[in-house]
């Protein structure tokens, strides 16, 4: 029970240490940029493929279900774009980042831990949090927002192809922002920020906890994916509830 409590507390402790070390980011500007390149470069094709298929399927299902009850499909595009921005865009992009970037961070840090490189840093008086976590934290926070915008654009593009070519909806009718309020953009952005904080912290924490050779790195990577994916879903639920209750 006590071990459980420590396990639950550990990410928050790391988050606190990261926030305290955040001012050092000015000195490690270059490493942040490198990290951003890695995060973005690793995941841009991956997110393009998955979000394109998400866009296709959402429009397909939306139009298919709407056909059963309504004679016209003029609202499909409007509702699709709105839910993409607010709900599906942030969630799916973040889940993809949890599998791509989260697993990557845990694998990297985990192999550094089992080969004693992190211990070596401590010996040379380099703070591992400052040197390893802060750049990845800042990078994934910024890149989550960037990839959210990118992912929504890809999904809308794919969805538009489906809507206009398969269901014959007029392009102008489909690409309507009438279903996207400023509040939807705000809620989507808030979600992205929350996910962008949770993913690197949880993944770095499982990477640091790796022990015992290649097996340990494998477990750490698995744990990072599961923990950060689950955190994304729970945070999504909390923010959606908050947004609904607050009337955003």
């Amino acid at each position, binding site marked *: 029970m006590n071990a459980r409590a420590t396990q639950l507390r550990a990410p928050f402790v790391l988050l606190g240490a990261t926030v305290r070390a955040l001012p050092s980011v000015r000195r490690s500007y270059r490493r942040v940029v490198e990290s951003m390149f890695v995060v973005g470069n690793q995941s841009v094709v991956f997110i393009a493929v998955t979000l394109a298929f998400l866009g296709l399927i959402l429009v397909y299902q939306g139009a298919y279900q709407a056909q059963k009850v309504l004679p016209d499909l003029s609202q499909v595009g409007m509702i699709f774009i709105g839910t993409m921005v607010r709900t599906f865009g942030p969630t799916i992009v973040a889940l993809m980042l949890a599998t791509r970037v989260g697993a990557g961070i845990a694998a990297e840090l985990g192999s550094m831990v089992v080969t004693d490189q992190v211990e070596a840093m401590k010996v040379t008086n380099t703070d591992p949090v400052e040197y390893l976590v802060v750049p990845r934290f800042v990078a994934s926070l910024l890149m989550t927002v960037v990839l959210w915008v990118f992912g929504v654009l890809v999904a809308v593009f794919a969805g538009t192809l489906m809507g206009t070519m398969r269901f014959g909806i007029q392009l102008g009718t489909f690409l309507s922002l009438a279903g996207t309020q400023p509040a939807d953009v705000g809620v989507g952005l808030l979600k992205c920020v929350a996910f962008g904080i949770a993913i690197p912290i949880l993944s770095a924490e499982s990477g640091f906890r790796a022990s015992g050779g290649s097996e340990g790195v494998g477990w750490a990577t698995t744990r990072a994916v599961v923990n950060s994916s689950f955190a994304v*879903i729970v945070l999504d639920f909390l923010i959606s509830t908050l947004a609904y209750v607050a009337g955003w």
Partner: protein
Amino acid sequence: MSGTRMPEEPVDDGSAVGASVAPVGRAILAACRVVGGMSVLQWRIVRSMLSPRAFDYDETVRQLFKVGWLSVGVVVATALFVGALMVISSGNFVKATGATSIVGWAAGTAVFSEVGPVLIGLMFSGRVGANNTAELGTMVITDQVDALRVLGIDPIAYLVVPRFLAMIVMLVLLTCIGDIFALIGGAIACQAVLGIDMRIYWHGVLESHLLDEFAMGLVKGFFFGGGISIVSCHWGLRVSGGAQGVGRAVNNSVVTAAIAIFVVNFFVTVLWT
């Protein structure tokens, strides 16, 4: 260390076109290798299953237990939140139109046909698929797979086929369980967050005749389970290069599985409807 500035890398202008095209070619070749390798693995699994004395019964039962035990907690927890999320997402439309009866239909359709199978599949891939890659990768690195071959045991029949069967059976069952828990999560959110009587929601779910959607979700679970097992065994058996190699293989495995889930999901839906 943190203050050092590296000099800029010199850029070779002579082959600018080649340098910009080369990564594309490399990526396409890498993708072909992955798809080809997985197809070969699928073929060897089928061949191994058709041959007499096909698979190790004990190992299959062990895998069934392990796969189910590993993932049931995370799948149930995810499903509860996902169902709640679907209900809350439809909340604004319900508030705008006043049509409270639509909640059950919307949540039920979304959960059964798309969101449920896909999110359960993604969590399953993160939990079981990644774990499987790590396990097989560690076996490869510590030469246990070669030891099996020396003993005259086919690694495909002994290691891969039981995992393939176990993941298919378990993901279909977990999709079933997850769908039910997602509906329960939705009911709780309906009452607690939206303030709509739970009975209206359950009525909406039951009146919408969602058996077709439910069956499609199970078919998706079947294909996702097969896909995840092939992807994770493929990456696990190809590990090389110590601890770093295992980490990278797990990473590649979950990414490939996620792509497979979205692509397969699309085709199952389009072919089903």
